[in-house]
């Protein structure tokens, strides 16, 4: 793993070296194919004319002619102080000649210089090399640990109190003879937190099937409802109790945010569940849900990646899974090697980021230029 980290840092340094930087023209005028683009663009640079300091200087004129043409056509007039222009209307594969002339209020334009270039599209955006290195490294690390976990290696995962409490919370509801409420958030099935919530629901449903504890799953999104109904049905079937599955336990409420929370609050006050799970994406309604649940005396376990809502859940719930702890739930509860491996890979990627932060801070302390150079390795450029 340390070797891999070293390789990653080396590749990042290589990425910095290959990143396209604006050229300083040694000739008065230089033209080149626009870097890292879809084609159709040529960049023209020139050295500032000494005439800029004189009165009457109006600016520059950029002209172009295609191979075989005789006459130069003006494509742009550039104000004083600027020494670069991008021709966005060049045809790919056609050699062009660019001429830059100095415009003054007196006399004819003075030719600064001429240069040739041909536009073409690139097949790789070198400015995104660092992103590619990051993607490849992260993917490799995750896949590496998945294979390691599959091979039987013991992978340590630290204690997550909220997830340890799931079994106890379900047991509490069973002993009290009260239902369990599971709210999987207010987002659709494409949200990662909803997917994580659905996975936790599967584990919870297996337990409720085993103990025959009533389960209430009000859904915000109709498609999520359909998926969750199947998940719960499957869980009951796997536990050998398909007849115990209640179709109406997983139901659609409304896609209106506060209509949904009003309905769930009503369920909490009427059914008085012993355990409330809030897993997924939550918004402004999170405190209303958690406070109402607290009022009924239920034990509450929440998990969300919505950073804004974490403070409300932390104050109002007994346990809160913060951000990626929710994503880790799948691996933690099931101890499936595939999921454990990906969790480990994530952690290593995070370790490399932390190392980069420490190294960058040290570099900045040693020298501002060194720190800025190191920071630029991680910059992404706009296309």
């Amino acid at each position, binding site marked *: 793993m340390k070797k891999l980290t070293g390789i990653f840092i080396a590749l990042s340094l290589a990425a910095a070296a290959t990143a396209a930087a604006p050229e300083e023209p040694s000739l008065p005028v230089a033209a080149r194919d626009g870097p890292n683009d879809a084609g159709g663009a040529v960049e023209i640079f020139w050295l500032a004319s000494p005439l800029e300091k004189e009165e009457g200087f109006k600016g520059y004129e950029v002209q172009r002619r295609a191979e075989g043409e005789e006459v130069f056509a003006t494509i742009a007039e550039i104000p004083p102080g600027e020494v670069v222009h991008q021709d966005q209307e060049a045809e790919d594969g056609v050699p062009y000649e660019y001429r830059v002339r100095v415009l003054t209020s007196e006399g004819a334009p003075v030719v600064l210089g001429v240069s040739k270039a041909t536009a073409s599209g690139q097949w790789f955006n070198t400015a995104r090399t660092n992103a590619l290195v990051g993607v490849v490294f992260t993917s490799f690390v995750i896949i590496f640990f998945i294979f390691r976990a599959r091979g039987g290696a013991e992978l340590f995962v630290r204690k997550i109190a909220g997830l340890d409490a799931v079994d106890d919370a379900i047991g509490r509801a069973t002993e009290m003879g009260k239902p369990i409420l599971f709210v999987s958030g207010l987002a659709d099935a494409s949200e990662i937190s909803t997917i994580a919530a659905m996975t936790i629901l599967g584990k919870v449903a297996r337990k409720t099937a085993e103990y025959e504890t009533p389960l209430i799953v009000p859904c915000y999104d109709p498609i999520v409802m359909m998926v969750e109904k199947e998940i719960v049905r499957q869980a009951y079937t796997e536990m050998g109790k398909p007849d115990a599955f209640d179709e109406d336990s997983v139901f659609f409420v409304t896609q209106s*945010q*506060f209509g949904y929370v009003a309905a769930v609050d009503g369920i909490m006050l009427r059914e008085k569940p012993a355990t409330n799970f809030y897993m997924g994406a939550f*918004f*402004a309604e999170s405190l209303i849900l958690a406070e109402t649940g607290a*009022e009924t005396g239920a034990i509450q376990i929440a998990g969300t990646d*919505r*950073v*804004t809502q974490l403070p409300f859940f932390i104050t109002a719930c007994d346990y809160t899974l913060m951000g990626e702890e929710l994503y880790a739930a799948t691996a933690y509860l099931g101890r499936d090697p595939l999921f454990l491996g990906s969790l480990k890979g994530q952690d290593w990627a995070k370790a490399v980021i932390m190392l980069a932060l420490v190294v960058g801070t040290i570099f900045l302390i040693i020298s501002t230029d060194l720190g800025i150079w190191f920071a630029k390795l991680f910059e*992404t450029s*706009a*296309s």
Partner: protein
Amino acid sequence: MNFYEKFLHIDRRYIFIFVALRVIIPLVWPLGLAVTTSPPVENVYNAVEELAPGTPVLVSVDYDPSTQPELSPMTIAVLRHCFARDLPVIITVLHPGGPGLALEISDRISKEVGAVYGEDYVFLGYKVGSSAVILSIGQDFHVSFPADYFNTPIDEIPLMKKVKNYNDIGLVITMSGSTYPDAWVAFAHERYGQKLAAGVTAVMAADYYPYLQTGQLVGLIGGLKGAAEYEKLINRPDDGLKGMDAQTIVHLFVVLMILLGNIAFLFVQRAKKREAA
């Protein structure tokens, strides 16, 4: 149960009544508390001020009626500022609950300042698929918005004839009660280098300070206080400033309740320790 224990278990409905009174009374009898501005809001103001007259600004109304009391005052203030600076405004909506709000605001403010539809502002309406829409604007407005909200092809709108994509827009300001600013940062700023500012609810404002620090957002208007600050900067007091009195009194009440609750908690803990001893 002694007095302190009773206080700790006070029926929450008494708290609700006091909060209600503390909201209503200052709205009826304003206190007129002076607002000072903060750097994040000043940065949004300056970003608009620095634009040359005639530079289009894209204002994205990405919220629904639930967050309207906090976000509409800042949207109105920003629109007034843009019109005062002769900056044409393109209004889009990424939240399905937003078109009605955006339409009402744009209609009202344009009539107030005498802005002409099609020249000074255009309302493109709502399109589904927020990230896809943000990305597509980077290519060409026509991809997501071939016509405006009133079904006029954008090729026939004078303002939109000058605007193809982000290259022609000076600033994007997203007003959101949800996570749309994250998508704007990821797709408009990172991918296309678009200058971006955001107006968000007070609860969300703390989340966007990392983006402020890196410069991915040039400025941030947070909550009703942010709206009040912006109204002060443009010298047009409105709902933002009016709401500040009520917000102040309620905040003070909540802080007082927290302090009293902790004092009562201390006494109860001491009593329990004495009993145990």
